[in-house]
């Protein structure tokens, strides 16, 4: 399957992502999930960025928290808007998971 997952928390209480092995994986960082794209702890990026996946982060949720594209620490994470989420869901992936 082609699965796009939504990560909405900074500290995760589930480890579902470690075991999902879809043919194609997208990770959209939303709400407090956006900190995975912007925040290093003790100089280390979040392990959330270690999956073999296409990464996206929601611009509105960055801005709400005082962050912006300039704060994104890894160029593989693409800043997107709600309309882009719709296109990803319909055109690039066939199933979704909100973790």
């Amino acid at each position, binding site marked *: 399957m082609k699965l796009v997952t*939504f990560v*909405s928390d900074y500290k995760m209480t589930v480890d579902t992502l470690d075991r999902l092995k879809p043919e194609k994986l997208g990770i959209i960082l939303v*709400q407090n999930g956006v900190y995975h794209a912007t925040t290093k702890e003790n100089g280390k990026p979040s392990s959330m960025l270690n999956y073999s996946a296409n990464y996206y982060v929601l611009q509105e949720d960055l801005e709400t928290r005082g962050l912006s594209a300039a704060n994104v620490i890894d160029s593989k994470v693409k800043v997107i808007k709600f*309309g882009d*989420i719709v296109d990803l*869901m*319909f055109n690039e992936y066939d199933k979704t998971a909100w973790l």
Partner: protein
Amino acid sequence: MGKLTIGCFASLVGSTNLDFAVKLSAAAMEKGHKVDLWVSGNGTMISIKDQRAFKDYSSLEKPLKELMAKGLNVTACEACAESRGYHADHTLEGVKRFSMDWYLGSAFDADRLLHIGGE
């Protein structure tokens, strides 16, 4: 153009999950998709009419009404609403109330489904 069914189970004011669901509905409709929005659990909070809009609390009555006027289909889980004291006479005009099978019925012919569960 396709059909998107969104299920949202978390609350309006306590989290931004419902804000997310409403904004995603708007974006999908703008692109010509049909959208069904199912709210269950604390998400049924969105179905109450006359929520006072303060700037310290997120308020979705206005955008929801605008989207429903454009065809957004919003249904609340009746049991979840009743158990919280949200009765039919306090329901926002246009919001339907059905039992949980409605969500599964909507999923039947959905091209995509986004279930927002979590905490």
